[in-house]
C-alpha cells in the first residue's frame, strides 16, 4: 500500500525528517507516536502533498507509484486521505455540497460519471449514522462554528464518504471528550477493510485503546527510532518519551 524509503524533508533549509522508512500493507493499522515537534505532522503533510516542503531525498511509493510529483488533489484521487489536526472552516459551503464536489472530482479523475443524487444521499445517511452525526450537521457549512469534537467527527465522516485506500489521521483524538473519542474510534474501526489501511498519528496511548494498531512506531527527532506491536504504546505510556530519549 504505502512504502516510504529514506525520506528526508526540509522546511526553509531546516531538516525535519531525517530518513523515514515505513511500510504499510493493506488491512493494517499503524500508529505513529512521539513527542511534540518531532515531525509527525510534517510526515502527514508530506504524504498528503502539501506545498512548502522540500523533499531532499527518498521516495513515497503509494500503490506502486511514486507520488512525490503528484499534487495534493491527485493524491486524494489516487486514494489518500488526511484527517486534519485542525480542520479548516469554510463558511457558506455546506458539507453536503463540499463532499459531492469532492466525490465527483475524484470520480472524474477515474473517468466515472458524477454520482447519482439518490445514491449520494443514501450514502450520506448511512455514514451519518455510523458517526452518530446530528441530522442538521450535513447542511451546515464545513466546520463553521463546530466544536472541536464536531470537527473531528466531520473529518471521519468525510473519510467515510470518500472511502480512501489509505487514511492518515493526524491527532484526531486531540480535543475529544471520551464519548466523542469512542464514536470516532468506532467509526474508524467500522471503516476498516482488508483493502484499506490507516495511519493514526497520536500523542497519547488513549486512542489506541479504541483503535487497536497492528504496528506502533515511535517518531523521534525526524526518525522512526522504534517499531513494535501494540504493547509498545503501553510501554510508552508507562515510561514516557524520556525512555526513548535515553534509549536513542
Amino acid at each position: 500500500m504505502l512504502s516510504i524509503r529514506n525520506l528526508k524533508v526540509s522546511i526553509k533549509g531546516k531538516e525535519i525528517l531525517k530518513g523515514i522508512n515505513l511500510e504499510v500493507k493493506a488491512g493494517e493499522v499503524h500508529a505513529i507516536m512521539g513527542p511534540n515537534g518531532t515531525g509527525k505532522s510534517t510526515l502527514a503533510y508530506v504524504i498528503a502533498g502539501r506545498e512548502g516542503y522540500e523533499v531532499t531525498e527518498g521516495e513515497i511509493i503509494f500503490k506502486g507509484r511514486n507520488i512525490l510529483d503528484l499534487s495534493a488533489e491527485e493524491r486524494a484521487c489516487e486514494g489518500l486521505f488526511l484527517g486534519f489536526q485542525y480542520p479548516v472552516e469554510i463558511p457558506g459551503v455546506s458539507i453536503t455540497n463540499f463532499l459531492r464536489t469532492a466525490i465527483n472530482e475524484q470520480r472524474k479523475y477515474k473517468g466515472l460519471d458524477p454520482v447519482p443524487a439518490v445514491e449520494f444521499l443514501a450514502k450520506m445517511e448511512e455514514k451519518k449514522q455510523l458517526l452518530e452525526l446530528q441530522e442538521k450537521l450535513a447542511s451546515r457549512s464545513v466546520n463553521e462554528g463546530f466544536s472541536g469534537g464536531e470537527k473531528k467527527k466531520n473529518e471521519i465522516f468525510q473519510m467515510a464518504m470518500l472511502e480512501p485506500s489509505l487514511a492518515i489521521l493526524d491527532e484526531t483524538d486531540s480535543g475529544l471528550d471520551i464519548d466523542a473519542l469512542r464514536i470516532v474510534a468506532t467509526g474508524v474501526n467500522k471503516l476498516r477493510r482488508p483493502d484499506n489501511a490507516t495511519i493514526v498519528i497520536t500523542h497519547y496511548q488513549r486512542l489506541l485503546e479504541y483503535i487497536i494498531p497492528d504496528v506502533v512506531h515511535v517518531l523521534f527527532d525526524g526518525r522512526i527510532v522504534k517499531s513494535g506491536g501494540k504493547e509498545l504504546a503501553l510501554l510508552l505510556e508507562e515510561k514516557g518519551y524520556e525512555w526513548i530519549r535515553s534509549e536513542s
Partner: protein
Amino acid sequence: MDQKRILISGKQKQNLIMEASIVSTIYDLKEYLSGVFADKQQEITRNDTHFVAAKRAKAFELFSKMGFPHAALEKWRGTDLSRALNHEYHALPEAPSPELDIDKIFKCDVPHFETLLVTQLNGWYADRNNLLQVYPNGMIIGSLAAAFSKYPDLVSAHYGNYADDNSEGLTALNTAMSQDGIFIYIPDNVTVEQNIQTVNITDFKQNLFLNTRNLVILGENSHLRLVQCDDSINHDVTFINSVTEVKIGRNSTLDHYKMQNKDDHTTLINSMYFHQDEGSTLSTNAISLNGGLIRNLSHVTMSGSHSSAEVYGLYLMDRYQHVDNQVFINHAAPDCESRELFKGVLDDHASGVFNGHIKVHRDAQRTNAFQTNKNILLSDKASIDTKPFLEIYADDVKCSHGATIGQLDAEALFYIRSRGISEANAKILLMYAFAADVINKISIPELRQRMDDMVKKRLRGELSQCEQCVLNCSTHEHSHVEFNIDLSKI
C-alpha cells in the same frame, strides 16, 4: 477632542504630472456641460417648479466652483476619473416615446422574484403614458420630474435636503442637470408587501453622460424593500452620475439593494443619501459584480435617536476594473447603531478603494458603530486602498474598525485540495466562502438565491467570458459554459 485617523494601507498616487493632464481634460468636459446648461436651459428646466429651478441654479454655481473631482481631493485620491472624463458625451438624452414597449426592453428573469418593476430608460421614467401611479394604499411611484409639479409640498420638504451639493461636485452637477428619475412615496403606516425593483437601462447610440436623480420618501411606521439594478444595452461609453435621496421616517424600515453589473465601458457614480428619523432601520447592500469604474457613496445621516443602519457591500473585480466604496455614517443622535461590512475580491489589474468614515457627534452618546473591510487580492497587480476614519466627539461610544488585505488562505486551499478538488475549484470555493457572509445579509430569499448564483457565475468567470451581455438579468439565455465543478446548489 477624541479624533482618530488611521491609515491602514495606502497607495498614494500623487503624480503631479498626471494631475496636470487631468485638470486639462476635466476642464473640457466641464466647459462643454456648462455650455449645455446655458444653451439648453429651457429643455433642462421644462418640468421645474420655482423651488427646483432655484436648486438647479445654486447647484450649478457650486459645480462651476468645484468642477469634477480630482486626485488632489482626499475622498477621490484613490479613484481617477480622468480617463472617464476624457470622452465627448451627449448629456441630455430625449425622454422615451410614449409608444415604447417597456416589456420589450427589460424583463427580469429572477425566478419567483415578485417585484413591482419600475423601469428607467436613459434616466427617464419609462412609462410615459402613466407618469405617476397612485396605489390603493396611498403609495406613489413614478417620474420625479412629474412629481415636481404634482406633489410640490412633498418635493420641497425633501428634494435637495439630503444630497451634498456643497462638497461633492458630481452631486451638484446632478442637481443642476438631472432631467428625471424615480419618485417613490410611501405614506405613514404602510408596509409594502411587494419588492419594488427599479431598473435603470442605458440604451443610446452615442456616448452618454447621464445625470439621473431619484427621490424616495418613507413616512412613519412604514416598510419598504427596494432593489435598484443597473443595466446597459449599448456598448458605447457611458458615464452615469446617479444621485438618490432617501428619507426614512420615524420607526420605518428600508431594505435596500444595489445590483451593479455593467460593462467595462461604463463609469457608474452612484451616490445614495439616506436620512434617518428616530427609531428607523436601514439596511443597504451594494453588490458590484462588474463595471469599468464604479463608485458607491453611502451617506447615512442618523438624525433621530434609536435608529440603526447596516451598510454592506461586496465587490468582485478583475481586468482593469475599479471599484470605490465610500461610506459616511453621520451619527447625529444618541442611542443609534451602525454596522458596516464590505468584502471584495480583486484580480488581474483591478483596483479598489474603501473609505469608511464614521462621525459621532458630541450629543450622540451611547453610539455603537462597527466597521469591517476585508479584501482578497488574487494577483500582485491588483490593489486596494482601504481607510477607516473614525471621528468621535462623544465620550460614551463603542466603535470598532478593522481592515484586512490578504491572499487566499493556503491552509484552507490545501484542506480542500486534499479532498480531491482541483486547485482552481478550491480557489472558487474559498472566494465564494469569503463572499458568502455578505450575500447572506440579503433578506429577500429569491434575491439572495439569485445573487448567490450570480456571484458563483462571476467567480467561475462565466460573466467575464460572455461577450454579448454582461448583465444576465436582462438576457434569458447565454452561452452555456462547461465547468467541472457543480456549485449550483451550494
